[in-house]
C-alpha cells in the first residue's frame, strides 16, 4: 500500500497531470422526479430501505428535538459558565491577557491563510444547494419539534425563507462562484452581528458573596459581544495584511517564519502573557544573561568553525568531546541551565557537519543556534519564575485552554521524538532498532490511561530531591511518549515508501548518511505521511479528554464535574456534554476536512 502511495506522490510532483478517472465524477443533473426514482426508489428493496430509513430519521429527530427543546433543559448552564469552560479559574480581571492570546492566534491564522493561499472557489449553485438542504432540515425540525403553534409558525417562516433563497440562488446564478473565505467571513460576521441584534438574553454568574445566576432579557453582555467582534475584525485585517505581504516577501521566507511563529507563539503566550512571570531582574542580569552570553558567543564561534567543510576530522572529535563534557556536567554539581545548554550545544555540534556549506549557510546555522539559545534561556527563566496570576489550585489554566495546551505540547514533544524513533526503527544499527522497536511496541500495547496514571503517580518518585514537576507537565510527558510511538509508526510508513533509487542517488552524489536522511529521505517520507499525521493530531486532541481521569481540570472535567455541581444547574450533565461534544466535533471535523484538502493539493493518493 504505502509503497504505491509513495511512488504515486513522486510521479504526481513531477508530472502534475491528474489521471483522467482521478477527477471527481461529474454528477449528472436529473430532474427531481427521476433523481428520486434513481436514488431512492429504484427497486422494491431500495424503496423499503428508503421508507425504513425515513421513519428512523423521523423518530430520531423527534427524540432529539424533544430532548433539546424540553423546557427542563438547562442550556444556559454552558452560556453562564462559558468562562469556566474556556479557562477554568483564570482571574476575570486579567481576562485581557486571554483575549490578547486569542487575537494572536487569529492574526497567525489570517496571515497563514493568505500566505498559503488556502480556500477555494465554491460554485454558487452549491451554496444554494446547502442553503436549501438547511431549509429542508429546518422545515422537518419545525414540524417535528414539540413547539407551540406560534413558535412553529416562526420556525416555518425561517425555513421558507431559507428554501426560497437557496432555490433562487441555485437557479439564477449558474456559472458564478464565490470564494470560500468570503463565505466563512460572511457566516462569522452574521454570527457576530447576531450577538448585537438578537436578544439571546443576558446570562452571567454573579460570584460576589452569594453566587447566583443572572438571566435578563436583552442581547448578550458587552464583555462577550465586543471582544468577539473585535476578534473577527482582527482576523480579517490580518488576512488583508497577509495579502499585502504575500507579494512583497519571498514565499519561502514567509512560510518558514510563519511555521516558526506557530510553534513559538503558544509557548510565549503561555509563559509570558498568560502566566505573567514576576521576573527578578537582579537575578536575570547577574546570572541568566551572563550564562546566555557565554554560550551564545563561544557556541557561535565553535559552530561557525564546525560547519566549515574544510574542518574535517578534528571537528567530529571536538563535537564528541562537547558531548562527553555535556554528559560529564550531569555528574558534577552545576546549574541545570548550564547542563541543558551543554547538551544543546553538543547536539548542534554533532549536527554541524551535516549542515556545512558556504558562508551564508554557516551564518544561518549560527543564527539558528543563537536564536535557540535566546529562547531556551528565556523559557527556563520564565518557568522558574513564580507567576503573578493568583489562581487557586495547582495550575493556572483549565478547561478548553488546558485541553489545547496539553495537545500542543504533546505534539511539540512527540514529533521530533517520533521521527527519531522511526529513523531508529528503520536503521541498520541493531541496538537502535531493538530499543526503538521495544519502546514502540510496548507503548502501543498498553492503553493510554495506564501510561497517564503511571506518569502522574510515578514521576514525583523518579525525581531527585529538590526537583519538582507539576502534574500537568508529568502527564504531558506521558501523552508525548504515547503519541510518539504511534507517530513513529506513521513516519516509518513514509520512510519505507521512499524508493531505493532515492537512497542510491543520494549516496552517488556523495552525501553522508545523515545528509541523506535529513535532505532526501525525511522530506519525502513526511510528505507521504501527512494524512496519518493529521489523523494523529486529531487523535491527540481527542485523547486530551482523558485528563479528567487523572483529575486535571480539562474541558470535559468542567462540563461533567464542575458545572452540574453548581446549585443552579444540578443535573445539567447531558446538556454540557452535548455542548462540548460540539466543540470537539467542530475542531476535529474541520481538521480532517483540511487534511483532505492538503492531500489533494500535494497530489497524494493519486496514482
Amino acid at each position: 500500500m504505502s509503497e504505491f502511495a509513495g511512488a504515486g506522490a513522486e510521479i504526481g510532483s513531477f508530472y502534475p497531470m491528474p489521471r483522467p478517472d482521478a477527477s471527481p465524477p461529474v454528477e449528472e443533473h436529473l430532474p427531481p422526479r427521476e433523481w428520486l426514482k434513481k436514488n431512492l426508489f429504484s427497486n422494491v428493496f431500495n424503496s423499503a430501505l428508503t421508507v425504513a430509513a425515513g421513519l428512523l430519521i423521523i423518530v430520531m429527530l423527534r427524540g432529539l428535538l424533544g430532548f433539546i427543546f424540553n423546557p427542563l433543559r438547562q442550556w444556559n448552564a454552558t452560556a453562564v459558565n462559558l468562562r469556566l469552560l474556556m479557562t477554568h479559574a483564570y482571574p476575570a480581571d486579567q481576562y485581557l491577557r486571554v483575549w490578547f492570546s486569542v487575537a494572536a492566534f487569529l492574526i497567525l491564522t489570517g496571515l497563514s491563510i493568505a500566505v498559503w493561499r488556502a480556500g477555494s472557489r465554491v460554485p454558487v449553485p452549491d451554496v444554494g444547494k446547502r442553503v436549501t438542504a438547511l431549509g429542508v432540515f429546518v422545515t422537518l425540525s419545525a414540524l417535528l419539534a414539540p413547539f407551540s403553534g406560534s413558535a412553529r409558525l416562526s420556525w416555518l417562516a425561517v425555513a421558507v425563507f431559507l428554501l426560497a433563497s437557496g432555490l433562487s440562488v441555485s437557479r439564477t446564478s449558474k456559472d458564478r462562484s464565490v470564494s470560500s473565505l468570503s463565505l466563512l467571513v460572511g457566516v462569522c460576521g452574521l454570527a457576530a452581528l447576531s450577538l448585537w441584534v438578537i436578544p439571546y438574553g443576558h446570562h452571567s454568574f454573579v460570584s460576589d458573596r452569594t453566587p447566583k445566576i443572572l438571566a435578563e432579557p436583552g442581547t448578550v453582555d458587552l464583555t462577550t459581544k465586543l471582544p468577539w467582534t473585535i476578534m473577527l475584525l482582527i482576523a480579517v485585517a490580518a488576512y488583508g495584511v497577509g495579502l499585502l505581504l504575500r507579494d512583497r516577501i519571498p514565499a519561502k521566507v514567509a512560510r518558514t517564519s510563519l511555521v516558526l511563529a506557530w510553534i513559538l507563539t503558544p509557548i510565549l503566550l503561555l509563559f509570558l502573557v498568560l502566566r505573567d512571570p514576576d521576573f527578578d531582574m537582579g537575578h536575570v542580569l547577574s546570572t541568566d544573561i551572563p550564562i546566555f552570553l557565554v554560550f551564545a558567543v563561544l557556541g557561535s564561534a565553535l559552530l561557525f568553525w564546525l560547519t566549515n567543510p574544510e574542518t574535517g576530522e578534528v571537528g567530529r572529535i571536538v563535537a564528541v568531546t562537547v558531548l562527553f563534557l555535556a554528559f560529564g556536567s550531569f555528574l558534577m554539581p552545576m546549574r541545570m541551565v548550564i547542563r541543558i545548554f551543554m547538551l544543546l550545544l553538543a547536539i548542534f555540534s554533532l549536527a554541524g557537519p551535516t549542515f556545512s556549506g558556504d558562508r551564508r549557510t554557516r551564518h544561518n546555522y549560527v543564527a539558528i543556534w543563537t536564536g535557540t539559545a535566546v529562547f531556551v534561556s528565556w523559557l527556563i527563566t520564565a518557568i522558574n519564575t513564580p507567576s503573578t496570576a493568583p489562581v487557586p489550585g495547582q495550575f493556572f489554566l483549565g478547561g478548553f485552554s488546558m485541553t489545547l495546551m496539553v495537545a500542543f505540547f504533546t505534539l511539540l514533544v512527540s514529533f521530533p521524538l517520533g521521527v527519531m524513533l522511526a529513523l531508529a526503527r528503520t536503521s541498520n544499527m541493531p541496538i537502535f532498532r531493538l530499543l526503538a522497536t521495544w519502546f514502540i511496541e510496548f507503548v502501543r500495547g498498553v492503553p493510554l490511561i495506564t501510561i497517564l496514571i503511571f506518569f502522574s503517580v510515578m514521576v514525583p518518585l523518579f525525581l531527585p530531591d529538590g526537583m519538582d514537576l507539576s502534574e500537568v507537565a508529568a502527564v504531558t510527558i506521558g501523552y508525548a511518549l504515547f503519541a510518539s510511538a504511534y507517530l513513529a509508526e506513521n513516519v516509518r510508513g513514509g520512510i519505507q515508501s521512499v524508493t531505493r533509487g532515492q537512497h542510491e542517488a543520494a549516496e552517488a552524489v556523495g552525501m553522508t548518511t545523515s545528509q541523506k536522511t535529513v535532505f532526501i529521505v525525511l522530506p519525502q517520507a513526511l510528505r507521504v505521511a501527512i494524512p496519518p499525521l493529521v489523523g494523529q493530531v486529531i487523535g491527540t486532541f481527542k485523547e486530551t479528554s482523558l485528563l479528567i481521569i487523572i483529575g486535571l481540570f480539562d474541558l470535559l472535567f468542567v462540563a461533567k464535574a464542575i458545572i452540574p455541581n453548581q446549585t443552579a444547574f444540578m443535573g445539567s450533565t447531558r446538556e454540557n456534554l452535548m455542548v462540548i461534544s460540539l466543540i470537539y466535533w467542530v475542531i476535529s471535523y474541520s481538521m480532517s476536512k483540511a487534511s483532505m484538502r492538503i492531500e489533494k493539493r500535494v497530489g497524494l493518493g493519486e496514482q
Partner: protein
Amino acid sequence: MTAPTNQASSTHEAVSQRVPLWRDAVVVKWTAQVATLVLVLASLWFLATQAGDNLTARNINIGFDFLERPPDIQLSEGIDTHPATGGRALWVGMVNTLRMAIVGIVFATLLGVVVGLARLSNNWLIRRLATIWVETLRNIPLLVQIIFYFSVLAVLPRVDMDTGPINGWLHISNKGLAMPRVFIADGFYQWATVMLVGGLAAHYVRRRRVDLHNESGANTSPVLWSLGTLAVFGMVGLFIHPLFGFIEPIMGAVASLLDSLPILLPQVLLSATAVLLAGRWIREFLAGRRSAVGHLALSDDDYFRIIFTAIAALMAVTVAIYWTGLSSWILNSGSDLFRVIETKFNVDGAARPFDAMRPDIVKPGKFANYGINGLTMTVGFAAVFFGVVFYTSAFIGEIVRGGILAVPKGQTEAASAVGLHRSQSLRHIILPQAIRVILPPLGNQYLNLTKNTSLAIAVGYSDIVQVGQTVYNQTGKTLPVVAIWMLFYLATSLTISVVVNYYNVRMKLVER
C-alpha cells in the same frame, strides 16, 4: 544493507590506505550504539534508584503480597463481586475487561460492516445516514461519548417490579437491562463432548459433499449438510450425554500422572524447544542470506542478529533450568486443569446441559436491584459497550468502505456480466477480495477497542483498570498494580495481533 558511505568521500590516494579507526563505519556505528545503550541503561538505573530511595523515604514498600491478602473491596459486577484476595479481585477485573473486549469486537465488527456497506449503498438516504453516523462518532472523543451514554442511562426510571417493557421478562431501568438467560448447567460438559464428536462428523460430511460436488458438479449444499449433522448430534446429545461419564476417571488419571512427573521433564522440554527454535531460525536466516551460488556475506547487523538469537536461547535455557518455580507451576496448573475437568464430568446422569431463568428483582436493603437469575447488563457496562461499539464501528465502517473501493471496478462489472446480482457479487466476488485489504487495519481497530475498554474507569464498570485503582488506593501498591495492568494489556494485545496475523497470512493472495 548499503555500503558505508563515509568511504565515498575519501580521496583517491586514501583508498589504498587503511581507514582510520574513527572513520571506520563499523567502529563508529557500534561505538554510538553501545554508548546509547549504556546511556539508556544508566538513566533507567538512575531513575530506579531514585524511585527506590523515594519509596523508602516515604515508607512505601512495593511487593506483590497484596495479591494474597483480603482486599476488603466490593466490585459492582463480575464473576465474583466479593473477591477473597487482591489477586482474585484483579482476576475478576481481567475477566470483565476481556468480556467487554470480546462482546465489543463482535458487535463493532457487525455494525461496522453494515455501516461500511451503507456508505456505498445505492440508496441516497442510507448513504447519507451512514456518513452522518461516521462523521459524528469518530470526531467526538470516546470518553465524552461513554460519559454521555452513562448520563443518559442514569436518568432511566428506578428499578421496580413493573418497570420493564415486558414485566418479568425484560426490564430496563437505571440499574441497567435484565432479560432471561440460558446458562450452562451441570450436564453441559458431557454434552459438549458429544458436540465435539459431532463437529468431527460434520467436518467429514462436509468434505464428502464437497468431493461429491467436484465429481458430479451438482449442487450438494455441503454447508447445509454439515450444519444438519451438527444439529442431529446436538439433539441426540441432549439424551445420550451421560454416556460420556467415563471421561471423569481418565481425566483424574491424567492429573495424577502430571502430579507424579518429575520437574526435570518440563525443564528439558522447555530448553530443547528454545534451542531448537533458535537453531532453526539461524539456519533459515543463513539460508536466506546465501546467494544463488552459495556465497555467504554477512554484515555486522547480521552477525548481531545471530548472536542475539543465540544469547536469547541460552537465556531461555538458563531461566528454564534455574527457575524451578516455572516448571513446577506448569506441572501444577496442568494437573489442576485436568482436576477441574474431572469435577466437571462428575455429575449424575439426570443433569441437564442447559437451563434457563427469568430475571428477578431483589431488595436486600432499601434499594431494589436485579438478582443473579437474569442476564443483566449494568448501566456501566452498557455505557462502555455502546461507547466502544459505536465509536469503533465508525472506524471499521471506513475500513470496510476503503477495502471494497480497493477492489477493481472490473471485478464488479465482470460479476454482473456473468449474471450475479448485487448481493451475490458482494458475497462471492467483492468481499473475499476486500478482506485482504481490510484485515490488517481491522486488527488494529480490535487492538484499539480492547485498549479503549480501559475508559470504563470513568463510569465505574469494574474492568481491570478500575479494580486496580481501587486496590492501589486501599493498599498503596501503585507500582505493582500498574505493572500487572501493563503485562495484562501487553499479553492481550499480543494475542489479538497473533490471531489477526494468522488470518492475514491465510487470506493472503497466493502468488507465484
